[in-house]
């Protein structure tokens, strides 16, 4: 019996388990998946919790609900990956041997990597919303916050879901309007980028929107430290920004087990071939989702597209065929912009987000890089799709793993 081992039962790992259990002959292959936690969080929902749009319990389900029969789920922290001897050691000392390893350990916020961030006022005046705990604590704080300077702060890139800080700022604008206290809140977005987003055409659109909503933006701000007592953040270039309430996206880093195993770069991301998802150092190790060092967005949609293509490539690998360089960096995401509207963007390694229609060319019905109500409903409907189709590896109609250029206004 050959062993296929998946590390991490998050979005990427769960999808791989579902795809592979159908494709691999179960008489020859045993699929196991290891994760330290029992709860699967719908991470895109964390954005909505602080504003009371989702309740905390709406984004949680047991991981086992999404793991198919025939897959062996091991709930145990991972101590070390010994890639040169094809072994994984668990916290309780169990040694798992593998023929093929899939690393899907994702990325976590690492507040301790930003100097001073957790020293004073953590989850009192300083909050993250990238964790369930952070989002829930922030919801409580916002409920009776009296206004003042709200700073949305992005410490360093890359981060999971690069548009989330913007969405947070847009939703905050809407939330305080709704509570009739927008004039008492000074909203500022602080970013190390030179504009709202990483890609030029969307940046132009989003910068404009920020100005419309009276959200200030401080660019090129590379954070040196946070002083929770003085309530200020400082950059290396000597800028300082004061806050009453700081909503921060701390440095994001790959799982510490990657560092313990000596497999990662300076942020614990695993060096990975950007087209085949094979690890650069070990040919029977594959990496998907946020755990890679690919220059693609760290987003669920990316993991989704990767999972479909990696499944095909794994079959090639098992059958001794050459790997196909199929992954094109395709990412797709909604950008919630407040007041019941949202943007939708679709892009890959080569093509930045542009205007057009999605998923069908010309017909749509969704509009790309435009603010519409339908996109907002799409974003809300996505939770249902995530739980019921995406995680279970069921194809979503008309959504292709490789990006289609049809119907896009590419210059």
């Amino acid at each position, binding site marked *: 019996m050959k062993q296929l081992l998946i590390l991490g039962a998050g979005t990427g790992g769960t999808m791989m388990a579902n795809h592979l259990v159908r494709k691999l002959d179960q008489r020859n292959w045993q699929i196991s998946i290891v994760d330290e936690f029992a709860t699967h969080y719908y991470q895109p929902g964390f954005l909505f919790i602080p504003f009371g749009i989702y309740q905390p319990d709406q984004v949680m389900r047991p991981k086992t609900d999404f793991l198919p029969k025939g897959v062996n789920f091991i709930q145990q922290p991972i101590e070390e990956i010994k890639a040169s001897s094809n072994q994984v050691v668990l916290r309780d000392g169990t040694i798992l041997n593998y023929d093929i390893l899939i690393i899907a350990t994702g990325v976590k916020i690492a507040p301790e990597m930003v100097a001073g961030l957790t020293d004073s006022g953590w989850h009192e005046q300083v909050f993250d919303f990238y964790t369930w705990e952070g989002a829930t604590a922030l919801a409580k704080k916002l409920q009776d916050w009296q206004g003042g300077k709200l700073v949305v702060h992005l410490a360093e890139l*890359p981060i999971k879901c690069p548009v989330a800080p913007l969405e947070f700022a847009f939703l905050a604008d809407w939330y305080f309007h709704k509570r009739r206290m927008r004039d008492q809140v000074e909203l500022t977005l602080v970013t*190390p*980028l030179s504009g709202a987003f990483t*890609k030029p055409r969307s940046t132009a659109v989003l910068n404009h929107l920020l100005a419309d909503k009276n959200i200030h933006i401080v*660019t090129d701000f590379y954070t*040196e430290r946070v002083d929770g007592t003085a309530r200020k953040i400082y950059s290396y270039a000597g800028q300082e920004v004061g806050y009453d309430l700081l909503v921060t996206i701390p440095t994001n880093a790959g799982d510490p087990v990657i560092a313990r195993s000596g497999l990662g770069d300076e*942020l614990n991301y695993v060096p990975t071939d950007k087209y085949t998802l094979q690890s650069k150092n070990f040919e029977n190790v594959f990496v998907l989702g946020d755990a890679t060092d690919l*220059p693609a967005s760290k987003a669920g949609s990316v993991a989704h597209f990767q999972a479909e293509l990696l499944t095909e490539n794994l079959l090639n690998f098992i059958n001794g065929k050459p790997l196909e360089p199929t992954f094109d960096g395709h990412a797709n995401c909604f950008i919630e912009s407040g007041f019941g509207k949202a943007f939708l963007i679709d892009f890959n390694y*080569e093509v930045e987000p542009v205007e057009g229609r999605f998923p069908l060319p010309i017909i749509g019905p969704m509009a790309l890089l435009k603010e519409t109500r339908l996109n907002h409903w799409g974003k809300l409907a996505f939770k249902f799709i995530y739980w019921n189709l995406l995680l279970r590896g069921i194809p979503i109609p008309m959504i292709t793993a490789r990006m289609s250029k049809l119907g896009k206004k590419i210059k």
Partner: protein
Amino acid sequence: MPTKTFAGLTVEVNDEGYLTDRAQWTKELAQAIALEEGIAELTPAHWKVIEFLQQDYAERGALPSIRRLNAVGGVPTKDLYNLFPGGPLKKPRALPACPNRPVVFEPQEEASYGRKQRKNQKGFNYRFAWFA
């Protein structure tokens, strides 16, 4: 293809001001560009940064982040800001479609995304481009 002359050395650049031909890059050219950007002399500390960038770019096909320069290249971030005032590294990893053009040092006040914006700014807009 536009050209630009630094201290008597004429090189080909693209419309954003970056060198297009790696072979035209020399240490003298780097010094000449630095002078234009307000750095009187490239010290060994500057060269340590430049050499790490070149080596890392050659190995990984992407420019390192400030964190990587610190963690792997051994250049403390504070020093980086002192060495190249007003324009630290742009974070190439922040740009998922990592540009092949190596944006190395960009002055902060006029840093902006997009070809269009840069084109619209008349006059010299040549940023440090140590290698193409």
